[in-house]
C-alpha cells in the first residue's frame, strides 16, 4: 500500500497514471526500461544472428545449436550449478553470520571488523584469484608449504585447482556483498519481534533461525538470488582456476566463444540467453515469495530501539570466528598483495626476498601520469554510479513493492536483466547505440556512467527491495495524511528509512564500479581511461607487482570513500 492507495486492477490504474504523484516513480521506471531493454534486445538479437557477409546477418537458430548441442553442454551445466549453488550458499552463510555478529550481538571489537569486511571486494578479481593461487597452489602455495613443513605432511592439504577450490576462492570474494546486504537487513528490524521469541523460550540461535532470518526472507532471498546469478556470470575464477583445472562452467564457455578466432559472438549470446532464462526463473520465484509484502514489514510504526543480543560467554566464540575469518580470508590475500607490491616480481616470502623489498612500484606509480588520470576518472565514476544507481533503484523498488501496480514485477525482472548480459555484449550494444548518437556521450566518461549504472542496477535493486519491504506502510501513510506529496514522502520518510539498504547498495556499487572492467574496456578511450583498464593493461605487460601496488592504493582509497560515506549517511536514517 502507499500514500496513494493504488487499485489492484489494470482498469482503475490507467486514469491514475495521469496523477502527478506517480510521475517520479514512473519516470524512474521509464529510465530503467530504457537502460535495461537495449542490452536485452541486443543480446536476444545477437543470439539469433549469423553473419554471412561483412556486417550482414541472417537470423537462425544456429547459435543455439552450437551453444547447447555440444557434448559438453551437460557437464558444463552441472558444473555451473554446483559452482553457483555451492558458492552462493557458502557466501550467504558466511556473510550472514558475519553481519549478525557485527550488527546484532555484543561480540567484542565487532565495530572494527565492519570496514575490514569489504576489503575482499576491493581487491581486483584477477589479483585476488592469483593471490589465492599463491596461497593454495599444491605446488608452491604458501599455506600448503607452511602446513606441510609444520606437520610434516607428505601431500599438500589444499589444492586451489579443484571445484571446491574454485568455490572457495570465488565465495570469499563475494562475502562482502552478502555481508553488506544482511547488515542492512539486520539494522532495520524491530527487536521486540525477537524479544518475544526469546520470551517464548527460544534460544538466541533458534530466534535467529526461526524469527530473524524468516522475517528477513525477502533480503535473504534477494541475497541468495543475486549471489547465485552473480556466480553464474562471474568470470575471473572460472578462467584462472577452472581452465587449468579443466573445470568448465557457463562463463568459461562464453569466454571461450568470445575469445576464439574470429570471435563467435552469436554462440556467446546464445549461452548468455540461457543465463537470462535461469535468472528470470529466479526473479519470478523471488517476487512470488515476497508478494504478501506486509509479512516482512519489520520497521514498524511503533518506533523501536534496535538492540544487541547478549551472547554471554559465547561472544568469545563469535570473536574467534570473526578473528579466524578476517585473518584467513581477508588478511592473507591482502598480505600477499601488500608483500608483492614491495617486490620487483612475485617471490615467496623469505629472507632472501627481503633484500629486494623496495618502494619502487609506488614511486613508479607516483610519477606515472596515466595512473592519476585513471584514478580520478574511476573515483568520479564510482561515486556517480553508486548515487545515481541507488536513487534509481530505490524508486523502482518502491514502484514494485509498495505501489503494487499490476505487472510491476516486470520491472523487477528488467532490473535483473543486466546481470545476465555479458559485459562485452553490453559494451558492444552501447557502442552501436551511442556511437552515432546525437548527444555526443560516446568516448566520454558519461557513456561509462550509463554502462555502469546499467550493469549494477541489479545489485542496487536487490538491496533496495529488501529494505523497502521492511518499511511499515503506515509510516508513509502518516506522511501522506500530513499533506506530504508522494515525492516529499519518498524523500523525507522512505529514503531515510531505507538508509541501511541504501548504504549497503551504495557501498557495493561504488566498489564494484571502481573495479568494472569488461564493459569499460570497450567504451573507454585515452582520456576517459579508468583504473581497471590501466591495471589490466599493465598486468598484461607482466608488471604484476605494480598492479599489486595499484590494488593496495585502491583498497585504501575505497576504504576511505566508504568511511566518509558512512559518516555522512549516518546523519539520516534510524538512529540506533
Amino acid at each position, binding site marked *: 500500500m502507499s500514500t496513494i492507495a493504488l487499485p489492484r486492477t489494470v482498469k482503475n490504474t490507467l486514469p491514475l497514471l495521469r496523477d502527478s504523484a506517480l510521475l517520479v516513480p514512473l519516470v524512474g521506471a521509464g529510465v530503467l526500461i530504457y537502460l535495461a531493454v537495449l542490452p536485452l534486445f541486443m543480446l536476444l538479437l545477437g543470439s539469433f544472428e549469423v553473419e554471412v557477409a*561483412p*556486417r550482414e546477418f541472417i537470423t537462425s537458430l544456429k547459435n543455439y545449436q552450437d551453444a547447447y548441442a555440444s557434448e*559438453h553442454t551437460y557437464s558444463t551445466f552441472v558444473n555451473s550449478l554446483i559452482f553457483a549453488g555451492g558458492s552462493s550458499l557458502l557466501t550467504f552463510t558466511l556473510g550472514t553470520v558475519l553481519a549478525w555478529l557485527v550488527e546484532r550481538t555484543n561480540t567484542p571489537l565487532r565495530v572494527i571488523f565492519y570496514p575490514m569486511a569489504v576489503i575482499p571486494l576491493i581487491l581486483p578479481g584477477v589479483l585476488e584469484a*592469483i593471490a589465492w*593461487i*599463491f596461497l593454495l*597452489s599444491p*605446488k*608452491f602455495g604458501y599455506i600448503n608449504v607452511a602446513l606441510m613443513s609444520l606437520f610434516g605432511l607428505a601431500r599438500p592439504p589444499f589444492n586451489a585447482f579443484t571445484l571446491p577450490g574454485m568455490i572457495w576462492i570465488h565465495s570469499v570474494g563475494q562475502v562482502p556483498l552478502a555481508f553488506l546486504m544482511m547488515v542492512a537487513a539486520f539494522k532495520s528490524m524491530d527487536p521486540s519481534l525477537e524479544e518475544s521469541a526469546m520470551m517464548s523460550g527460544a534460544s538466541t540461535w533458534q530466534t535467529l533461525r526461526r524469527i530473524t532470518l524468516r522475517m528477513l526472507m525477502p533480503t535473504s532471498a534477494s541475497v541468495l538470488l543475486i549471489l547465485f546469478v552473480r556466480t553464474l556470470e562471474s568470470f575471473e575464477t572460472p*578462467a*584462472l582456476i577452472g*581452465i*587449468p583445472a*579443466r573445470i*568448465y562452467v557457463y562463463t568459461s564457455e562464453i569466454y*571461450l566463444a568470445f*575469445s*576464439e*578466432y*574470429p*570471435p563467435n559472438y552469436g554462440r556467446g549470446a546464445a549461452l548468455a540467453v540461457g543465463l537470462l532464462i535461469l535468472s528470470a526463473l529466479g526473479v519470478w520465484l523471488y517476487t512470488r515469495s515476497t508478494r504478501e509484502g506486509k509479512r516482512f514489514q519489520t520497521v514498524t510504526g511503533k518506533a523501536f530501539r534496535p538492540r544487541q543480543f547478549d551472547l554471554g560467554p559465547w561472544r568469545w566464540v563469535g570473536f574467534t570466528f570473526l578473528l579466524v575469518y578476517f585473518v584467513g580470508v581477508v588478511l592473507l590475500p591482502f598480505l600477499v598483495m601488500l608483500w608483492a607490491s614491495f617486490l*620487483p*616480481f*612475485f*617471490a*615467496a616470502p623469505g629472507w632472501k626476498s627481503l633484500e*629486494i623489498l623496495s618502494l619502487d612500484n609506488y614511486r613508479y606509480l607516483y610519477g606515472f601520469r*596515466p595512473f592519476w588520470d585513471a584514478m580520478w576518472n574511476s573515483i568520479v565514476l564510482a561515486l556517480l554510479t553508486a548515487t545515481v544507481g541507488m536513487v534509481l533503484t530505490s524508486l523502482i523498488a518502491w514502484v514494485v513493492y509498495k505501489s503494487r501496480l499490476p505487472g510491476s514485477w516486470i520491472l523487477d525482472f528488467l532490473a535483473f536483466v543486466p546481470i545476465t548480459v555479458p559485459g*562485452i555484449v553490453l*559494451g*558492444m550494444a552501447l*557502442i*552501436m*547505440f*551511442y*556511437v*552515432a548518437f546525437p548527444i555526443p556521450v560516446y*568516448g566520454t566518461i558519461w557513456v561509462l556512467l550509463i554502462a555502469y549504472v546499467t550493469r549494477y542496477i541489479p545489485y542496487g535493486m536487490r538491496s533496495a527491495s529488501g529494505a523497502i519491504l521492511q518499511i511499515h506502510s503506515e509510516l508513509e501513510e502518516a506522511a501522506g495524511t500530513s499533506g506530504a506529496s508522494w515525492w516529499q514522502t519518498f524523500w523525507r520518510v522512505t529514503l531515510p528509512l531505507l538508509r541501511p539498504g541504501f548504504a549497503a547498495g551504495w557501498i557495493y556499487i561504488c566498489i564494484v564500479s571502481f573495479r568494472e572492467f569488461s564493459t569499460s*574496456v*570497450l567504451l573507454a*578511450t*585515452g*582520456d576517459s*581511461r579508468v583504473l581497471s*583498464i*590501466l591495471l589490466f*593493461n*599493465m*598486468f*598484461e*605487460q*607482466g*608488471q*604484476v607487482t605494480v598492479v599489486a601496488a595499484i590494488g593496495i592504493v585502491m583498497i585504501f582509497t575505497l576504504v576511505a570513500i566508504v568511511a566518509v560515506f558512512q559518516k555522512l549517511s549516518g546523519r539520516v536514517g534510524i538512529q540506533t
Partner: protein
Amino acid sequence: SPAGGQSLDELHKLALKEGGTLNCYCTLAVVNAQKIFPEFEKRFPGIKVNHVDLTADQLAARAVAEARGGRTIGDVIQGSLENVIQVFEQKLLLEKLPPEAAAYPAELKGSYWVSNNMVFIIAAWNTGLVQKGDEPKSFEDFADPKWKGKLIAEPRDLELLMGLGRYKYKSDEKAIEVLKKIAVNNVEFHKGHSELAQFLLAGQGAACLTCYSHHFPPQIKKGAPLAYLLSEGIGTINGTAVFKDSPHPNTAWLFARWAASEEGQKVYAVGGRTPAHPKVEPTEKIRPAKIYPIGVAEIKDWKKYEKTWKEIFKLR
C-alpha cells in the same frame, strides 16, 4: 582517402588541417605508449595522439561494433595480424601500402598492412627448478618424460603448432607428433601470458612452453630466477593499417608511414617493442635467432589448426 607520395612534412601540414588529432587503435602497453607517442607528437608538432589501448581482439570488436553503429572513429589500427585481417574482412581498412613498406620482406607485409613490431612466443624455465644441463635446447626437448607434470602453457597459443608445422618441420604431421609427445607430460594450461610468467616464477611449473619473450628481461634484470630460450621462437606480427573511412585520413596516413619508417621503428625499439624493420635492432635481447613468423597464410587455416591443437591437448 589520404593524398599520395609527398614527404612526411607536407603530409604533416595536411594533417594539421584535419584538426590534429589521431585516434590510434593500438595494442601498445601504456608503458610503451608513454615513450613512443610523445616522440611522434614531438616530431610532428600540433598533432595529438588519442590512444585507445586494448588487446587486439577487443580493438577489432570495438572497430566492428562502431562500424555497425554507423560510424568510423579509428584512424589507424595496430595489433595482432589476425585481428587486423578480421577488421579488413569487415571491409573497414584502406587497401594501400605506405612507400616505407618497400624496406620490409614479403612475409612482413600485405596489400594493406605492414608489420610494425613483433611478439615472440618462446620457451622459458625457472632456473630454481631446472638444474644446469637440464635446460631445454629446443621445443621438442619438452617431449622428454623428465618434464612430466612440470610444463605450463597458454591454452590459445596454437601459433606454436602452426610455427612448428609450417616452418620448423615443414610438416604438420611431424609437429602434431611432437606436440602429442609433449602432451603426454600433461601440460597445465593457464590463461594469460602474464599469469604464465608469474606462475613460472612462483614454481607452478618448471618450464613454460609458450611465454612472451618480452616479459622476461625486465624481471631477470631485477634478479628473477628465470631463463628463456632464444635459439628459436614463434613470431607473431603486430601490423599497422589505416581505416578506410578514417575521420583524419592524412593524419592516419602520416602515422602509418612514420611508424613503418626507419626513424619510427627506432622509436618503437626504444619504447620497448621489437621492431619489425630489418635494419632496426630491438634494445632488449628478446628476438630469437630462428623465427617462425605466423603470417596471412597460416591465419587462413586458423580454424583447422585450432581444432587439431585442442585435440592434441584435450582442450576446450
